């Protein structure tokens, strides 16, 4: 009976498993963002975009994928159509177009890791996060800090609402209007209670953590299967092949190559 229960619990846990491993997502994000940052070529930006779009689709975030693709291609076609916009314009307007082009360029470079951020923020459950972090050989105290930071985030929001209500009871409104009118008072009445409240919470939380064995010196075991699976290996292969194909086959600046060819056809 009890084994059945344990098994069901385990299966329930395992069924929440995200489509890709969290550690893989983080490492892919670091690597692609660094490559995109260093490389001046447009094809690399495209490859990074395709990789992150695939990751979004794997996590079944279709609507978000559509929005990001829309933004990306909007900036792309803006930069493509710049030469047309430039004809017969005044100097000031040309500078404006150029600055807008620079902005589009930033968006293209940054969008791929904003997409990864979106996936991790929306689709990774907190228990998975903790279990994955534990496997990353971090210092125990630092791990504790990071985990507490995640755990406290919703609580901090709730506490802020309590403080807001308490201040309203005393006739002090905390809003953007009052912040602009007297920022020092607004900070004193919102941030300071939050900070001093955190002292009590820290006492309680560290007591709870000690009881649950945070100071245990040996390796902790997790119920969650944090392991690279078939999908993860395929994803690694996929990332390498996308960047490799971009490097080998697109000699003339990625998509620009295709578009000029379409024009010629």
């Amino acid at each position, binding site marked *: 009976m009890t084994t059945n229960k344990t098994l069901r619990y385990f299966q329930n846990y395992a069924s929440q498993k995200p489509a890709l491993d969290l550690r893989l997502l*983080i490492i892919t*994000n*670091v690597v692609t*963002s660094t490559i995109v*940052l260093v490389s*001046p070529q*447009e094809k690399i930006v495209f490859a990074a975009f395709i990789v992150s779009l695939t990751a979004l689709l794997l996590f079944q975030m279709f609507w978000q994928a559509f929005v990001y693709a829309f933004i990306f291609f909007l900036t792309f076609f803006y930069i493509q159509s710049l*030469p047309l916009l430039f004809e017969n314009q005044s*100097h000031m307007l*040309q*500078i404006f177009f*150029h*600055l807008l082009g*620079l*902005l589009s*360029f*930033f*968006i293209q470079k*940054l969008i791929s*890791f*904003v997409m*990864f*951020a*979106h*996936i*991790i923020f929306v689709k990774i459950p907190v228990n998975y996060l903790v279990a994955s*972090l534990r496997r990353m050989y*971090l210092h125990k*105290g*630092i791990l*504790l*800090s*990071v*985990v*507490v*930071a*995640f*755990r*406290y*985030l919703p609580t*901090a*929001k709730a506490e*802020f609402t309590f403080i807001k209500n308490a201040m309203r009871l005393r006739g002090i409104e905390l809003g953007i209007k009052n912040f602009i009118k007297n*920022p020092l008072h607004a*900070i*004193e009445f919102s*941030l*300071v209670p*939050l*900070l*001093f409240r*955190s002292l009590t*919470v*820290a*006492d309680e*939380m*560290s007591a709870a*953590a*000690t009881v649950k064995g945070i*100071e245990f010196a040996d390796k902790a075991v997790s119920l969650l299967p944090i392991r690279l699976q078939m999908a993860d290996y395929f994803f690694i292969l996929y990332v390498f092949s996308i960047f490799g194909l971009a490097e080998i086959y697109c000699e003339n600046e990625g998509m620009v190559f295709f578009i000029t060819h379409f024009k010629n056809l």
Partner: protein
Amino acid sequence: MKLEKFKTKDFVLLGIITSIYSMIYIMVGALTAPLSILAHALMLPLVALFFGGTITVFLIYKIPKFGILSLFSLVFLLFFSVIGMSYLPMQVSTMLAAFLGDFISASSQYRNKHKNALAYGIINFGLSAGGVIPIWFFAQNYKSTWAKRGLSNSRLEENIQFYSGYVGVVILFLSFLGGVVGIYLGYKILKKHFKNEG
């Protein structure tokens, strides 16, 4: 310089304070999400001025142990890289600045107001530099992309160079200033409360 060991409670408090700091960042950053790094660089001085300074003063008042500033930066960066905002130049520059800030602040046991202000200013400068310097790099990339298509207009290029350089220097300076003034502001805000606590 006295080396003390961090206890479990210190790590928990550090986590909670990082959470509050990050919450403010996320709240301010949500307004400017699509332009993350650029907007981050722009909003950083303001966040540091009004919130970061007070939070840092509180933290180093409660945990005056060597390495607290670098630990704070490390946890903050780790938090953001787990969320997905892992941005290598920013991490490197911030950690370097945080080490420097720790040495400055620890030379008087984290009790000297002016040294703390300087340290936090440096940390903010590092955080900002990680965001701004790649932008200069991007501008270079952008120009080379144009030159490759045979569309070089030297006057325009000079203009862009000027704007991006000018804005970058202003952001760097403002974030340093924001950090320094933020600490003084934090001491002013928290003075009364620390006195009550004893």
